[in-house]
Every structure is written in C-alpha cells, then in structure tokens.
C-alpha cells in the first residue's frame, strides 16, 4: 500500500530499477524468458476503435484473416488487455480517453500506431482537432505504413510485435514510467494544466522497478494537489495516511 499511494509532502527521491538480465539469477532469467514467450502468444487487444483504421480490424479478427490462430483476440476492458491499437488519427478528445485507457492497462503493455496519422499527422496534418504525433503522448512499440493499413499489414505488425516481445525487445512501456514527467508535461500542454488521471503512475513506476530520474519532475509535482484531494475522497485510505504521518513524527 505504501508503494501505491505516495503520501502528501513525502519526498522519495531515490530511484529504483528492475535488475538487468545479467543481474538476475539463472532461474529467474529462464522464467522471465518463458513468461515473455507465453505473453507473446496471447495478446489481448483492447476493443477501442480510435479512428478509421478500426474498420480493418473486424476483417483481421474474423474468419478471413483470423488473428485468433496466433492468440490475438479482442478484449473489452483495458484492465485485461495487453495491446492498444491506435487505429489512425486521434482527436484531442479521443487522446484523453486513450491515455486513460492506456494507464489502466497492466504492464507490460504494448501500443501500435496504425497508418500515417499516428506518425506525422497524416491526412489531417493541418487539422486543428487531431494530434500529429502519437509517440509524444504515449510510448509506441511500432507503426505500420498505410492509410489505412490492410489486414495483411496489420497481421504483419502484430507478428512483428510478437517476435519482439518474445525476444524481450518490446519495452516501450517502460519509457512511460521512466519519462513520465515528460509525457505528462506534453499531455498537460495539450489538455491544460488541470490535466491529471486517476492512475498513480509514479507509484506504478516504483512497483515495476522503473522509477528513474525522469519519472518525477515539475509536471508530476503538480499532481500532489490531486492526490491529496483523492485521499480525502476515499475514506478507507485516511487511516493509512494518519499512520504514516504518525510514523514520521
């Protein structure tokens, strides 16, 4: 619980880091590799149609291009999903929901950007309403060229992602923890200074062992106001806080 809910005013400057492969015991290395292998064989795709590219997902998932044969299947809730497909352009309004959904997903989690729009604005490069670069707001594991990419291309990007998960290379999700302050700063620049999400990413970063120098900073400092507010809203957390304060005094 201490890890999950940082206490107001408490400074925890030390970073933490998950052990590198060579630091891990042989047993753990084998187990991790096995876990990666299994993970790559069962990807649950969050059922969220963010843009036009979503129209090629039903063919990809259903009989003709049948992605279920490699263990890819749609999942209705972000909590149980591994893979977030950003199927094309993102309006600012959608991007907020995407970030909320992304933060709800359990790590390790993967993001794929579909088509031109996610790379450099695409068709809507001069539109006031759409975000031009997805990777500025959440870390992305791969892109596909196309407008829109056809199902075979979608298959290929997912197979590519599976290969990279299997070999332990698809680690963009860690960047979100390591550079959370930067990501949050960019998000806030777009959504306004009020922007905050219910997920405590900083605590998650500690939990996963990717709390780095870039995790906190000027932007995350702003979040404290909201954390305090949240603590006051959830009565069960209050004794916890009292205990911590007591311990400190």
């Amino acid at each position, binding site marked *: 619980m201490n890890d999950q809910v940082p206490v107001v005013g408490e400074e925890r400057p030390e970073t933490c880091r998950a052990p590198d492969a060579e630091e891990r015991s042989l047993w753990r290395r084998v187990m991790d590799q096995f876990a990666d292998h299994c993970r790559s064989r069962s990807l649950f795709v969050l059922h969220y149609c963010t843009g036009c590219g979503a129209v090629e997902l*039903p063919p990809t998932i259903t009989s003709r291009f049948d992605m279920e044969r490699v263990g890819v299947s749609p999942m209705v809730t972000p909590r149980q999903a591994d893979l977030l497909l950003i199927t094309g352009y993102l309006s600012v309004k959608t991007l907020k*929901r995407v970030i909320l959904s992304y933060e*709800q997903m359990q790590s390790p989690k993967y993001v794929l950007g579909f088509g031109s729009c996610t790379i450099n604005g695409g068709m809507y490069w001069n539109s006031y309403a759409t975000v031009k670069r997805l990777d500025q707001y959440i870390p992305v594991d791969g892109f596909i060229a196309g407008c829109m990419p056809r199902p075979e291309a979608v298959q290929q990007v997912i197979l590519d992602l599976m290969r990279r998960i299997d070999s332990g290379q698809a680690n963009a999700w860690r960047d979100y923890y390591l550079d959370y302050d930067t990501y949050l700063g960019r998000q806030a620049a777009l959504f306004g200074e009020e922007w905050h999400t219910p997920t405590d990413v900083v605590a998650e970063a500690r939990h996963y062992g990717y709390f780095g120098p870039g995790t906190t900073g000027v932007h995350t400092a702003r979040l404290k106001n909201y954390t305090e507010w949240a603590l006051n809203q959830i009565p069960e957390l209050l004794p916890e806080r009292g205990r911590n304060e007591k311990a400190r005094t």
Partner: protein
Amino acid sequence: MRPENYSPVQHPPSHEYELYFGPNHPGIEGNYAIRVRLNGDVIQEAIADGGYLHRGFEKLMEQRLWIQNIALVPRICVPDPVPMEEAYARAVEALGGLEVPERAQWIRVMMLEISRICSHLFTFGGNAATIGLYTNMFWGISMRDLFLDLFEEITGARIYHMYITPGGVRRDLPEGVLDRLEATLDEMERRTPEFEDLFFDNAVVIKRARGTGVISLRDALAWGVTGPNLRGSGLPSDVRRDDPYLVYPDLEFDIPTEVEGDALARMRVRKAEVVQSIRILRQVIERLRGIEGPIRCPLPNPLAWNIPAGEAYTRVESSKGEVGFFAVSDGGPKPYRVHVRGPSQMHAVQVLERVLKGGRLEDVAQIMFSLDACPPEVDR
C-alpha cells in the same frame, strides 16, 4: 474508473444512476459515447456525446484544391465511403459545369451499389454481435471482404477508394472484373438464405429486436430520419428515386419498406436492399458490357482550376440515408465552403437520444446499430 477531471457530486439514490456508455466500449459502433441516466435498467435520459472522431473536414476542405479534396471526402464515412465521393464530385460537376461520360456514370452506380452492399453486410455483422450472435459477424465481415477484393481490383484500394473524381472516375475497369463481380453476386445470392436462417429467422434475434427502438412514421418524418430507417417506418422514399442522379432513372429496382419501425424492421429493410442492389448491379453489368467510351471528361490542369462562383446542394442515397453536400465556390481554386450533411448526424444524436428513452440498457448498442449510425459522419 472515474471519468477524467471528475468532480464530486451528491450520490443519487442507488437505483438511479448515470452510466458512460463508450467511447471505449464493445457495444458501440465506432468511437462514440452515450451518457445514459438509468433507473434500474430503464433509460430515463440519453445524451449523445460525439466529437471523438472530429477532424474538421469542412475546414480542411477549404484549405485544399478542388481535386485534392477527392482524397479527403471518402474519409468522412469509413464503412460507406463511395456516396461521399459521389456527392462531392457531383457538387463540383454542378458548379463547374462538367458532363460525366456515360460509361463513367454506370461505373459510378456500380461503385455506389457495391459500397451499399458492403456497408449493409458490416452493419448486419455488427448488429448481430450486439445481440450476442458472433457467427453472423464472422459471416458478414468475410462476405464483405469478397466485395472489398473487387474494390481493390477496380480502384487499387480496399477501403478508401478515392476513385470517383469530378467529371468521371479515375481508371477504367480492369479486364474481366465484371465477370468476377457477377461471380461474387452469385455467391452472395447463394449465401442470402443462410443469412436469413441465421439471423432473420432466428428466434433470439426476433425476440430481441422486435419492438425495440420503435420509430413511428410520424416521428420519423418529424425527426428527420432518412434512408433505410425511414423506409423501416413505412415511407418508400429514396433519393435515388425521388431526386435521381447518374443513370438511376434507367434502372429497375424496388424500394423495400417495412411498417413496424423497430430494429428488426430496419434490418429487414437492409436485407431487402441488398437484394435490390444485386438486382441493380446485374443490370449495370449488362449495360457496362455494351458501353465503351471515355471514363472522364477532360479536366483543367488541377493546379490551375478555378471553379466559377456559385453554390450547389447535391444529395446521394447512402446505405445510411441521405448524404448532402453543400458546396460554395467564390471562383477560386479551393472550395469556399463545403457543408457535409451526413444521415447519421440525425440518427446518432437527436433520433438516438429520443429512441433510447424508455428503452433498456442492454438494447443501447443494438438500437444504435439498427439505426446504422456512423460516428465519423457525425463528427466530420
């Protein structure tokens, strides 16, 4: 999870609550949201929430040359892009005084009707899925894919064809494609009874869909319902017949209607429309074999193409209803203003809000699908 920037509110009595339905929700078509206030599972009030797919099309079109906009318009409606291309092209033709050659007119009708079948199959699959019948979805989507293969062959792209251009179409038909279209239509006809058995004669479907989301003809007219939804309520109105364009006056087809005005009736209308589209396509194939000629009238240099000042309002019957394009030119190289009237702008907002009222929570998705609302068309 609480919604972003949530502010504390007085909790209502436990049997009355508010639910965010979408945008991240499997039961919703596209990226769209509905906020429903419920009492138990009965909807007291529904508030549509769009804008997730807003790209500012109308603004973007003012920034691009007349010809460049052919790439933009199909993206307004993802499942049924061809009517958008047609409506835009015809607006430009009306403003610029272009004559579409006969062969191009027939090819355009062919494209429109294939697109209609595709869109109806998509809706059919999606609609079944909202009732929990996934086989239909698998069938519908893979059947649609056969037509997408034809699109790919004709236009070089599966979804966004960018094929209809002011003055005609961009490429002539490839060799033998009419035969393959005919074969696909045969396959479609062979499968139609199976779809019938699987969906329309399915007791589950009938129990769920009958009496759900009823729109009376009177309401339909008052609320601005168009297309299959209006015909599902009993009015045999179709832009192809009432405000004809291209070569539709030369074609024989019926306008299927149902009188119940519920979700089932609307789906039955769509099914009957697919049959009519096949009938139209067979006539088109017949005629196209005998028509040779140019596929596009000569266009000015697209980089130096000023269209005389004026305005034009063109209407096209899409699979979802009446598409309208209002184009204004100030005599310049770019449109001065293009206003897109998508049928879903009515269906997904005001009509949906009204129809959902008094309905049940589990029917939200089904009703939305039965209205065949297309969110990108609402948001533009």
